[in-house]
C-alpha cells in the first residue's frame, strides 16, 4: 500500500514531470467527484432525472414549431423532430459541459485551496456529469425514432467517434473557461452568453445544407458545426451528406481548442490556489 521511499521533489516549474502520473494516481478522486456531482444533481431536485428529459424535449418542440412550421425550412427527407434532436443532443451536451466545467473550479474553491490533486480532475468530472445528462436525453431520440418508425443505417456505429469529438470540444472550451474564470471575475457573465449565442449560430434548428455553398467553409469555423453535422450524418443516414472540407476544418479547430485549453490550464493551474 505504501510506495516505499517514493521521492517527491517540489521545485518551481517542476510539477510538469509527475503530472500525468499523478493524474492516473488520482483517477479514483476523479471517479468520486463525478459520482458526487451526479448523486447531488439527481438528489437535490425533486424532478432531478426528469429535468434532463423535459428540457431538451421542450426545446425540441419549440424549434420544430419555429423552424419547420413558421420558417418552413426543408428537412432533407427526415422527420423534422429527429433532425432537430440529432443536433440538440450534442449541442446541449456541449452547452452544459461548457457551463459546468467553466464554473467548476469556482464552486470547488474550498477543495482547491486545501488539498492537492491535479486540478484537471475538477472540470473533467463536470464534463462527465453533463455526459450523464446527454445519455439520459438520448432516450428521447430513441423514443422519437420508434414513434416515427425511423431506422438508422450502418452509419450509427460511427456515432461514438462524433461523441468523442463533442467531448473534446466541450473539454477544450470548458478548460479555457475554467482557467479564465478563476483569474477574471467577469468570465462567468461571458459563459451563458456564449452558450445562448452559440445555439443560434450553430445549425441546431435547421440543416446546414440551408447555408449557401460558398459560405459553408466559413460557417464551419464554428467547431460545433462539424460536430452537429457529424451527428446528423451518423444518425439520420440515407442521403445526408457530410461536407468534408467544413468537417475537417471544424475537427482541426476542436483539436486546437483542446490542446491550447490543456496547455493554458496547465500553465495557470499552479496559481489557482493563490488567487481563488
Amino acid at each position, binding site marked *: *500500500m*505504501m*510506495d*516505499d*521511499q*517514493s*521521492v*517527491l*521533489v*517540489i*521545485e*518551481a*516549474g517542476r*510539477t510538469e514531470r509527475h503530472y500525468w502520473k499523478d493524474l492516473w494516481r488520482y483517477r*479514483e*478522486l476523479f*471517479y*468520486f*467527484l463525478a459520482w*458526487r456531482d451526479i*448523486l*447531488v444533481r439527481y*438528489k*437535490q431536485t425533486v424532478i432531478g432525472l426528469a429535468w434532463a428529459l423535459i428540457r431538451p424535449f421542450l426545446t425540441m418542440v419549440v424549434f420544430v414549431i419555429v423552424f419547420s412550421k413558421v420558417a418552413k425550412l426543408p428537412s432533407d427527407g427526415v422527420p423534422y423532430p429527429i433532425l432537430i434532436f440529432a443536433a440538440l443532443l450534442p449541442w446541449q451536451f456541449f452547452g452544459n459541459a461548457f457551463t459546468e466545467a467553466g464554473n467548476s473550479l469556482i464552486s470547488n474553491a*474550498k*477543495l*482547491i*485551496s*486545501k*488539498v*492537492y*490533486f491535479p486540478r484537471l480532475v475538477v472540470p473533467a468530472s463536470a464534463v462527465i456529469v453533463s455526459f450523464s445528462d446527454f445519455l439520459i436525453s438520448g432516450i428521447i431520440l430513441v423514443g422519437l425514432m420508434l414513434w416515427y418508425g425511423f431506422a438508422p443505417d450502418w452509419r450509427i456505429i460511427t456515432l461514438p467517434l462524433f461523441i468523442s469529438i463533442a467531448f473534446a470540444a466541450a473539454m477544450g472550451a470548458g478548460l479555457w473557461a475554467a482557467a*479564465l474564470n478563476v*483569474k*477574471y*471575475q*467577469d*468570465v462567468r457573465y*461571458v459563459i451563458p452568453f456564449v452558450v445562448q449565442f452559440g445555439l443560434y449560430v450553430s445549425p441546431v434548428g435547421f440543416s446546414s445544407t440551408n447555408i449557401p455553398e460558398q459560405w459553408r467553409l466559413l460557417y464551419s469555423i464554428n467547431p460545433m458545426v462539424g460536430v452537429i453535422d457529424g451527428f446528423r450524418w451518423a444518425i439520420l443516414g440515407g442521403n445526408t451528406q457530410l461536407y468534408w472540407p467544413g468537417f475537417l476544418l471544424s475537427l482541426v479547430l476542436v483539436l486546437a481548442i483542446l490542446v491550447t485549453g490543456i496547455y493554458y490550464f496547465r500553465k495557470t493551474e*499552479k*496559481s489557482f*490556489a*493563490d*488567487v481563488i
Partner: protein
Amino acid sequence: MSTGITIENLSKKYIISHQKRERYFALRDVLANGAKRLIHKLIHPFAAPENDPTHEEFWALKDINFDIMQGDRVGIIGRNGAGKSTLLKILSRITEPTSGKITIKGRVASLLEVGTGFHPELTGRENIFLNGAVLGMRKVEIKEKFDEIVAFAEVEKFLDTPVKHYSSGMYMRLAFAVAAHLEPEILIVDEVLAVGDIHFHNKCIGKMQDVGKEGRTVIFVSHNMAAINSLCTRGIVLTQGKLEFAGDIDGAIKNYLSQSSVSSSFRRLKKQSVYKPKTVEILDCKFYSSGSPGVIVCGEATHFEIEYVATQPNLSIQFLIGVYDVYNTCVLFLDSAALELSSRGLPSSGKIFGSLSKDFSLFPGTYTINIAALLHEELIDHIPNALQIIVQDGDFFGTGRWPRGKPLALVKQNWRVEENNAT
C-alpha cells in the same frame, strides 16, 4: 534515521495589488489596460516601460533551509503572517514555490482543514468515501477501514442520513475519523485541532501522538504552545517569512516567546480602563525565576511584582492574579486579601512583591495571567491576558526524575515507610 524532508532556499512571492480591494481581476480591465499600454507605446515608441506602481511584491517565505528526519515530530511556530500556512501549502503541493527546492521521501497526507470535500446533501457513508478520496486514500483502503472509521466517529445510527442533518459535533467527529485513519509516512496538520471541545481536542492530540510513535513524520502548525510542546520533538520558528530557529522544541518555544516581547511582558489591550473613577491603575506586572522574565524554571521559586499608582495614599487595595492554562482553565488564583496585605493601607504608588514557594510548580507549559485590583470589593482595574509566562522543565525534585502522568502542578512531598510488626 535518515532525512525525510529537505528544504533548500525555499522562497514564495506574492504580488499584492494596491489599486483595488477585489479578490479577482476583471478581464475587461486587463483588456482595457493592455489596449492603453499599446496605444501609449504607439504614441511614444521610445519611452521606457513604466513600472506598475499598483503592484507590490511580498515575500511570504524567504530563503528557508532545514531538514526533517524521518520519524521527527516537528512543530512550526510563528505569529500570524509569519509564513506557516504558506509553508504547509507548499509542502502539500497546493501552491508552488517561487524558488528553491524541497525533497520529500514517502507518501504525504495533509490535513489543512477537517472535512474538506464534505457535501451536505450526501449521507455519512457517501461522505466517508468522498473525503477519503480527497485525502488521497484508495477505495480499497477506505473499504477496509470503513467499520473502524464509523466506530471511531460514533455515528453508526446516522450513517445513511445526509450530513446536513448532523450536529456540528457529529460532523467534526466523522470528519476527523476519516483523517485519523490515513496512513501516510508524512502527516501535515494545520490548526484543525483548534476547533471542537477539549475532549475532541485531546482525542486528536492522542491520535497524532500514536502516529508519531509509529515512526511516522508529523509536521504540525499551531498557536497552542502546550499542544506543540506535548506533541512535538523538534521546532521551527518563522518570523516574517524567515527561519528564526530550528532545533529542539523547548528551544523553539523559548525563542518564540522571547521574540514576542509583547506577550511575555505586561500589556494592556485597551488604552483606557473601563472602570471609573480610576482610583487605582496597575502599571506593570512581572513574573520571573532565576532566568529571563516570563520564564519560570520548574523547581525554582517564582517571583512576581505588581507596580501600581493610586489617586491617594492609605487605600486598602486588593490585588488578584489569575493564572490560566491553554484551555483557559484557572489553575492558580492569588489573592492579596488572603494575606491581609490590603488592610494595612498602601502608599499612593509603589510595587508589590510576592513569591511562590519552590516546593510548588505548575506543570511545564504556557500560561496566561489576568490581573485585577479591587477597592472595597469593587473592581477598579482589570487586565485580562496581561502577560504570558512559560514554565520550563527543571529538576523539580532534585532527583533528576520526573513523575508519571501529566498533572496540572507539581508539589514536593514526603513519603515514609513503616514495617508492620508481627505481634
